[in-house]
């Protein structure tokens, strides 16, 4: 058996990679980015868990999306001095989100941008953090509590993410889609603070008028 274990160790794919150096510039940049994020006090985490446990079952239904008439390049990611991260993209041109998401991860945004799919191709409900339900209307105080705000500009979707406001175990899933409606194209955006990252996000139904 020793021989077979030796062969297993020799097949380690990491043997061929260069030794990662925690003092190289890339690692040090990562270290600085991490240290720039506020820590979570144990007491705060405890309270949040309790609220989530109480409110857990009540929230999932209120899936209201945010609609706006659609606009005009790939994407930008900018990290600001206050820790917030500004993301902009054009929904109609953003076909592959992998690079954008890699960029977001490098920036520590804890945000995944997903192209939404028709509801019949994505039937699993979002595992949303009950602390952050979807809002149809919001006061400035509510918006300030949320880790994400966004707006539609003529050139696309502009999102501001506050990673420090995303609970430690959560992720911001930001779904987007373009829909051709009789009265023109519509950009749909769904920002969801989720406890488990979904494998897909469904385009929400049109709001009743």
């Amino acid at each position: 058996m020793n021989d077979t274990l030796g062969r297993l160790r020799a097949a380690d794919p990491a043997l061929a990679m260069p030794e990662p150096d925690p003092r190289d510039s890339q690692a040090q940049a990562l270290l600085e980015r991490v240290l720039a994020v506020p820590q979570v006090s144990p007491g705060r985490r405890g309270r949040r868990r309790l609220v989530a446990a109480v409110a857990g079952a009540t929230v999932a239904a209120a899936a209201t999306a945010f609609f706006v008439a659609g606009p005009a390049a790939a994407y930008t990611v900018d990290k600001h001095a206050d820790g917030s991260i500004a993301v902009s993209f054009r929904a109609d041109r953003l076909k592959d989100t992998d690079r954008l998401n890699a960029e977001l991860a490098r920036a520590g945004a804890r945000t995944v941008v997903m192209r939404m799919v028709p509801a019949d191709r994505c039937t699993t409900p979002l595992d949303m953090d009950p602390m952050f339900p979807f809002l149809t209307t919001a006061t400035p105080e509510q918006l300030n509590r949320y880790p994400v705000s966004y707006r539609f500009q003529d050139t696309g979707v502009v999102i501001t993410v506050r990673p420090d406001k995303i609970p430690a175990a959560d992720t911001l899933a930001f779904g987007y889609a373009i829909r051709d409606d009789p009265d023109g194209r519509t950009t749909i955006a769904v920002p969801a603070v989720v406890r488990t990252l979904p494998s897909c996000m469904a385009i929400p139904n049109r709001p009743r008028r």
Partner: protein
Amino acid sequence: MEPDDAAARRRFEELFEAHYAELTRFATRRVGADAAGDIVAGTFLIAWRRLGELPPDHARAWLYSTARQVIANELRGRTRLQRLTDKAAAGGDVHAPDHSAQVDEQMRVRAVLAELSPADQEVLRLIEWEGLDVAEAALVLRCTRTALKVRLHRARRRFAQRLLATDEQDTSTARRTRPSIVPQGSTSP
């Protein structure tokens, strides 16, 4: 900076220095070099935010456990799920230099590993590739040391059996398919 903050920062920097390389290797094995940076960043971010919860005696196991969860989230959530899974199954996108025989052997061994149950694969990877000891692996897999030893023993045995069976199969296949050149008038190849 408050003294507590300075102490926390120093502790985290030591943690980072000690475990950055092995966590990068771990993530590369699982999801490939492209996504490994994201996994390491996510793991250290959680470690920093929860530094007070890190068990001083088992920080390494805690980090590996957290990294596994970050990877699971990554694999669940991203549209590149299949690509990552393919890479993980193939042992990441780190390539050995082009020594055909060596690469063949590595691919064969990794293929045998990939045929085992996920539980067998996990314990073998943690022990044989990551270099965790039994106590650390038991913490990562949330089982007792005794259970871990049993799992490891059985996984090693199954791996060895399959690998040797594959060797035999390859040898016999090679015999059947290898061209034989026999000179006229000769009675043996």
